[in-house]
């Protein structure tokens, strides 16, 4: 038997090259994104009271899709028949230990030896290496993407990314991958912990001291960069008409003078000689607080603690963070009702729990508001939601840790595809994070444009048809294996039903489903037996390439079509 193989299009990084090319759309593109916040939509006045309706499969899917970057059939099976409380407990229980750190994947290439780190070992504690810095950053990003793709059924990856978006730093500016990793670990370790403590640590985190010039902030030459973002972006925000003042920025900068980075120790330290020992006067926004100037080795920490106390006495911190969580987990329109019924009571929970994050998330994710039908299927998937979700939806087999070079090659590829569709882990566009979470009035719609939407579809198509073949590993969706795990793949209705549950939160109409079934599974015919017969024929003779292809080609075309639907971009 002859076999003509299609040339492997996604090999040799043609795909990636293509993804990075400018789109050749000829038509004048008329951006249909919001020109004003959509306030005309149906509204809900539900609040944070616990959801008391049915917690059925649809509710389970809604919860999982918002917290786990997309779901697989096995995720559904894993959580099936659990109560909302049980599922939430599971989602909000994260491992104590950090994952294994990123490894030297680059020295498998003889041209890139690392005198300090053997191939396959971690570089996170090694001496800085200007020549290998770029490689290490690539390693970090691929490692992170790998953790997302291998996410466990808990909220850790989703929250780690939340804090990265919140305390945004750019690895290309920090230029020390060890600092970047340390900063990342701080966010990961505290992702469900105490927000106040997290802010305190971020203030003296070496990556942040580099990124926002805190390391250059001295009594003789105060640098206000970090002090401004600390207030504007990290804590109190600018949502209130009367917020912090320029004097507050200068005063906070003085509080934070004297912090230094230590490259050798991969740490930060306080230099009392560079610290401004004068009293720091804040505005009425902070109740005219005066932070008493100190000197000596503990001055930095003492004044920092005072600064935290002052910031967190301002209730706006709790509301500001709850609004960000809301936009990350629910929807971007925060109208008067949402502010009153969700944000304010949630902020109270936050404060009453001394800024512990977990109780806030728990309250939000089990609220009647979260499960309100109006708040379902309205989130446009972020690039990580999309790509990790794609892998989860199709149970994409990933390379294991047995071959580091192979594994990193694929994770790095995945990370680069994610970057090409608008989310470069480790390098958000600015200190404000990704505009999709703050840019009014478009918000999530900014993820989707004439460049990124075709690229999303190309990613799905590439993984379905040709795969990415590197280092003797073919990263490719196995549609037959996928549907073989479904409840009853020989029945085209049940097969589609299972597939649609995983892929869509926005339901397709019954007539659309019939058309899809007929066009893709029944070969343009009307009766279900066409699929059932073909499936049975292959099952009866699994080694027969022709029988296998008869069903597999239909599944590939089906899934290409489904992932190409606008509904697939929603979760």
């Amino acid at each position, binding site marked *: 038997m002859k076999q003509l193989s*299609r040339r492997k299009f996604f090999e040799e990084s043609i795909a990636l090259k293509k993804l990075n090319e400018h789109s*050749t759309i000829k038509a004048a593109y008329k951006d249909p994104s919001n020109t004003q916040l959509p306030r005309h939509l149906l509204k809900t006045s539900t609040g944070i009271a616990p959801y008391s309706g049915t917690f059925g499969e649809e509710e389970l899917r809604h919860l999982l899709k918002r917290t786990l970057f997309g779901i697989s059939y096995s995720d559904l099976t894993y959580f099936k028949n659990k109560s909302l409380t049980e599922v939430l407990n599971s989602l909000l229980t994260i491992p104590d230990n950090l994952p294994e750190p990123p490894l030297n994947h680059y020295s498998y290439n003889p041209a890139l030896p690392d005198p300090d780190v053997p191939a396959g070992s971690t570089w996170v504690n090694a001496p800085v290496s200007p020549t290998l810095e770029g490689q290490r950053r690539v390693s970090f990003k691929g490692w992170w993407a790998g953790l997302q793709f291998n996410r466990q059924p808990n909220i850790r990856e989703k929250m780690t990314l939340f804090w990265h978006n919140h305390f945004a730093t750019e690895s290309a500016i920090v230029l020390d991958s060890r600092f970047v990793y340390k900063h990342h670990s701080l966010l990961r370790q505290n992702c469900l912990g105490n927000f106040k403590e997290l802010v305190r640590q971020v203030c003296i985190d070496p990556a942040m001291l580099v990124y926002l010039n805190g390391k250059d902030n001295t009594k003789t030459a105060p640098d206000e960069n970090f002090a401004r973002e600390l207030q504007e972006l990290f804590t109190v925000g600018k949502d209130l008409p009367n917020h912090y003042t320029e004097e507050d920025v200068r005063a906070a900068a003085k509080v934070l003078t004297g912090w230094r980075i230590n490259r050798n120790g991969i740490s930060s330290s306080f230099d009392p000689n560079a610290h401004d020992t004068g009293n720091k006067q804040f505005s009425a926004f902070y109740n005219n607080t005066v932070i008493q100037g100190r000197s000596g080795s503990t001055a930095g920490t003492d004044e920092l603690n005072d600064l935290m106390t002052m910031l967190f006495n301002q209730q706006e911190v709790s509301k500001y963070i709850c609004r960000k969580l809301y936009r990350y987990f629910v929807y971007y329109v925060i109208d008067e009702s949402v502010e009153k019924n969700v944000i304010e009571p949630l902020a109270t929970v936050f404060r009453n729990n001394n800024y512990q994050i977990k109780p806030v998330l728990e309250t939000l994710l089990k609220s009647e508001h979260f499960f309100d039908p109006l708040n379902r299927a309205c989130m446009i998937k972020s690039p990580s939601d999309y790509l990790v979700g794609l892998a989860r939806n199709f149970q994409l087999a990933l390379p294991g840790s047995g071959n580091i070079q192979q594994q990193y090659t694929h994770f790095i590829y995945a990370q680069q595809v994610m970057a090409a569709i608008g989310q470069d882990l480790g390098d958000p566009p600015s200190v404000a994070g990704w505009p999709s979470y703050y840019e009014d009035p478009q918000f999530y719609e900014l993820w989707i444009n004439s460049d990124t939407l075709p690229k999303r579809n190309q990613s799905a198509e590439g993984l379905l048809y040709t795969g990415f073949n590197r280092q003797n590993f073919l990263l490719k969706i196995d549609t037959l294996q996928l549907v073989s795990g479904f409840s009853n793949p020989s029945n085209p209705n049940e097969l589609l039903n299972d597939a649609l549950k995983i892929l869509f939160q926005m339901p397709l109409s019954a007539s659309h489903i019939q058309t899809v079934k007929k066009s893709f599974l029944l070969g343009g015919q009307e009766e279900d037996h*066409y699929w059932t017969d073909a499936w049975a024929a292959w099952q009866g003779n699994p080694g027969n390439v022709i029988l296998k292809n008869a069903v597999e080609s239909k599944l590939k075309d089906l899934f290409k079509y489904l992932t190409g639907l606008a509904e697939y971009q929603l979760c």
Partner: protein
Amino acid sequence: MDRRKFLRTSIGSGLAPLVLNGLSVNAFAESPLLQFLGKSNKNRIAVLLQLNGGNDGLNTVIPIDQYSFLSNARSNILIPEAKVLALTGTTKTGLHPAMNELRSLYDEGRLSIVQNVGYPNPDFSHFRATDIWLTGSDSNQFVETGWMGRYLDLQFAGFPTGYPNEEYPDPPAIQIGAMISPALQGQHASLGMSITNPSSFYQFVNGTVDPAPNTPAGHELSFLRLVAQQTQQYSGSVKTAADKGRNLSSKYPAAGTNSLADQLKIVAQLISGGLSTQVYMVSLGGFDTHSAQVDVSAKENGSHATLLQKISQAVNAFQDDLKLLGVDDRVLGMTFSEFGRRIKSNASLGTDHGTSAPLFLFGKHIKGGIYGKNPVIPQNASVNDNVPMEFDFRSIYGSILKEWFEISDTERTEILLKDFPTLDLIDGSATGYYEKSLSKKLIVFPNPTTGVVTIQFENQISGEPISLEIFDMQGRKQELGSLQNNSDNGIFRLDLSHLPAGNYAIHLQQGRRRWTEKLMKVD
């Protein structure tokens, strides 16, 4: 079967069509005419109509001369002989009574019938047989690309990288339907753009999308659909063509009553709008007529009749539209189905999966007539009896590639994965370089002839040398025999007694001008 014998038995047989206008390019494969006609024509369009389910060929193109044995085999579904539509020029073959419009097209020479199309070792599974037809593979061969995809890959080198571009602004192929046919799968990507359904097409033209609920999800869905609509790579060029294009025929059935007609109407609109897309694929399902394919009380009616009527009305309206739009010169259509049905009917007023079946080709430049013979029906057909293959379906594909798309023999062999004999399907005037009206200046009579023919050449230029050649259907030059030339009045008398029976092409050239005419030799 060798090629020569193949042609003789198919076209040269007594059932050869009488409607034979003009001359095929094929006949001049080695002649200067090919050069004259130009080597390729990007403006030509093929429209492929897929009939999903396996069409009952014996109740579509009816072998009237086999009626008594057919009656033995399928009396419960056989169309009453009196109802069968007669075709001009033959008493042996007729059409199902639901296909009045196709009968007219046939009589006008714009519809050809190719009998008994199939392939060796036929497969009876819908999916597999469909894949064989769409990929153009052997029965036991697994091919990932489609036959049209392989053709288009040659035209659109490296597709999709770098497309669309200024030279190739339009989609290589368009599929009307959610699923893009495997026939359009190329090496790297499918060369087909899908227009999911007629309503999505008209939404696209109008820049609208399906209504969505006034909820956050509905709001975002509409946004996404609008982006998706605009970011289809070819949205600009297709929308431009759709805006410029029109439909002029009043023969289309009401929208929503004949999905094939609805699809072809879009194709006509896009063609008339100037889209340079070369291949369109449309489809109609429901041909898997295991039961109740006829009404028990009136066998000329029933589900199969309804389907055939849809084809007939859709093709007729489409052809009428193309003519009114002035683009019929450029369009060729072909129907196909994954298999025919069993000779012997079953007890449920239906037919089970079979093998070979007839297909239709239509268009202004189709030669017309019937290719091949009526299937021979056994006296007492058993459930295992099937219509034997006369033409491999890839011969039809090859003919389209060779005569319509005018690609080289090497490329044709590459596309079809091996060499298949081609038929002589296309009228030579299809190129537009060769005006059909010119042929009227070359009059050949009697035609058919048993030997001596008179050739009248009306507007010769005095003093310019004239060359007269005669070719068989494989383009091979024949001995002329004795030639009497009265150069004053432009009349030649040519004795062709020495030639075997069959079809020939007379080629006359004076200076840069060339004329051709078809001649049939009978014994």
